[in-house]
């Protein structure tokens, strides 16, 4: 469908499992309407790992929540999120009834939340958490627990030991992995993860990222990995979307994002990220600060901080495909090399 391609320029002929159209999330506040997701269109392809990168205040957690229609009150979610199940059904997630939504969540799309290390019930052993989830969705507990044990050992955990433990007896890394197993116990198609590794040690973060790639291959999943840590997600994702001020500014495959990012914000973000390889003097913070959701600037939301900005930037740039693999929303993307990349990624 050419319409679809125009909306999500990086869609090749792979089939989308989630089609997001005109997604808007807003909150009414005393001082105005706060728009935390601003007219987002996105296709998520079956079997891919897509990374969504944004800083605090970019709207990324809201995007995650909206995929399960779980945006907190009093937020209002509008638009369409079409989920195409493996048997060919099309479901608009935002249109589901309470009961249907309850079945949908965790069975089709499952989520690992931010700050989830405290989401276990401290009075229940891990086993009971799994059993409770299985029973709540009417799944047979016997085979479900077998699957849980397999998931746990795929995540390098000892199933018997972990299942018999209480949450406080497990380390942060173990809990996080157990949480991933819990999210996968009902065999969902899509796994959404919002900063799943934020509170963990470096080594554990990196290891879990490796594990996730294996899990995706073994269980045939689609994954959405949301984070502020761009370098981390490049180790995992096939495509990366960059969120700024509540909308996508760039969406491309990982290699392009690292080697030739087309949006000034992506470049600035790469330059500002401390890393081990780039020369020190060239790491630079980004001037200015992120916009207030109630008061987003006219036109391109980044233009007040952008070194390439000119008058034309007062018009909202269109998010469009600029190469085979990259889509960007910028009037000046062709001049992007005026902003040098300090990272000089090796070929």
């Amino acid at each position, binding site marked *: 469908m050419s319409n679809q391609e125009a909306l999500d320029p990086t869609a090749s002929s792979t089939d989308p499992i989630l089609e997001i159209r005109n997604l808007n999330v807003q909150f009414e506040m005393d001082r105005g309407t706060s728009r935390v997701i601003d007219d987002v269109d996105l296709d998520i392809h079956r079997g891919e790992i897509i990374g969504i990168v944004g*800083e*605090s205040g970019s709207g990324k957690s809201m995007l995650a929540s909206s995929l399960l229609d779980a945006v907190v009150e009093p937020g209002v979610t509008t638009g369409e999120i079409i989920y195409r199940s493996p048997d060919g059904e099309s479901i608009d997630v935002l249109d589901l009834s309470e009961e249907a939504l309850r079945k949908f969540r965790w069975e089709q799309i499952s989520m690992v939340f931010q700050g989830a290390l405290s989401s276990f019930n401290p009075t229940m052993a891990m086993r009971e958490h799994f059993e409770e989830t299985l029973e709540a969705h009417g799944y047979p507990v016997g085979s479900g627990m077998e699957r849980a044990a397999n998931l746990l050992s795929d995540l*390098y955990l000892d199933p018997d030991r972990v299942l018999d433990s209480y949450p406080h007896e497990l*380390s*942060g*890394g*173990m809990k996080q992995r157990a949480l991933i197993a819990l999210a996968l116990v009902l065999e969902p198609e899509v796994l959404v993860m919002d900063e799943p590794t934020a509170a963990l*040690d*470096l*080594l*554990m*973060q*990196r*290891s879990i990222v*490796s594990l996730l*790639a294996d899990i995706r291959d073994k269980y045939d999943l689609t994954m959405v990995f949301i984070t*502020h*840590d*761009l*370098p*981390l997600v*490049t*180790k995992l994702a096939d495509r990366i979307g960059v969120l700024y001020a509540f909308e996508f500014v760039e969406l491309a495959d*990982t*290699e392009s994002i*690292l080697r030739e990012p087309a949006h000034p914000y992506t470049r*600035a*973000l*790469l330059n*500002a*990220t*401390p*890393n*081990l*390889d*780039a020369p*020190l003097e060239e*790491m*630079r*913070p*980004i001037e200015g*600060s992120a916009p207030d959701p109630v008061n987003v600037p006219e036109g391109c939301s980044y233009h007040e901080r952008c070194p390439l900005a000119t008058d034309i930037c007062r018009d909202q740039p269109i998010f469009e495909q600029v190469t085979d693999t990259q889509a960007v929303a910028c009037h000046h993307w062709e001049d992007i090399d005026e902003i040098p990349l300090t*990272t000089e*990624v*090796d070929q």
Partner: protein
Amino acid sequence: MSTHETVVSLSGVDVHFDTESGINPFTDSETVRAVDDVDLEIDEKDVIAIVGESGSGKTTLGKTAVGLQKPTSGTVSYRGQDVWKARKRFSNPEIPFSEIRRSLQIIHQDPESSLNPHKSVRSSLEQPLKKWQKGLGPEDREARILAMLQKVGMSPPHDYAERYPHQLSGGETQRVALIRALLMNPDLILADEAVSALDVSLRVEMMDLMLDLQDSFNTSYLFISHDLSNARYVAEHADGYLGVMYLGELVEFGPAKEVLKNPQHPYTKVLRWATPSLEITDETEPPVRKIDIPDPVNPPSGCRFHTRCPYATGHCRESAPESRSADVPEHRTACYRIDEHSDYWDAEPLEGAHVDR
């Protein structure tokens, strides 16, 4: 080391915690050996970054260095004066404890709780001035606070001075915490994961600010981080030092550039691997035999890293290596592999490990 005077020196410092055993009098209380036999010297205008994961004891080490944690054994000295001896009454120290207390300050990790939520920014910043600069009148204090706020880029300063912590962003809160520490003109500031809670793009800004102010205030920094990239930024910029901690021990220490260019300890190499860089590399397996960190209550025998080290042998399990330097004298590592003549090379590798020169 530099030719500057030593500000703080730790010698043979142990910090052990007894975990409570509860009501049962028959269970042994367990000891967590958070810091084990660490020596460290911090000179004037030094920047020392300490990296490690959870359970490494880096935070405990940091707090011991600034006198907020009493060591179980060993000494902590400020300009030659034993800090904890100075604290005792009737000890008549050369440098009084109040002076020491003023010179050693801290910036915490969590912006949400580093400032008293009930006090405005002005009120929080007046506190150190009222205590330590008694010669200033209220207007002087006000002017100084405003000038400092302006200096760190919080403008207009009057507006910021009136705000409460919940009205500040994380980056702003940390800057206020930095000012609060600097107002006392300290000799050493412990930055305990001070940038870890900030957005990636704000970290460089905050670290730049800290380094900027270091020049003018003549302060040293002890910068604790679990993130090697942040540690590298701060330490290399200031030509400082980098230390790596694992389960309470300082396993590698040296000039930051040197340590990062030639990491000697296997654990340091693992940390390097684990730090995401912006290169596209192939997926590699973690270069450790086990992913999970051992329980700090029951650390492994001998070299504590032997359970996970890809090069471990039976020798490593039996006894712990001393810290020694190879080519560069300031660069010390606690690993047998530094020493060509060590018994390590003749011992059997452990399961899953291999010995290669």
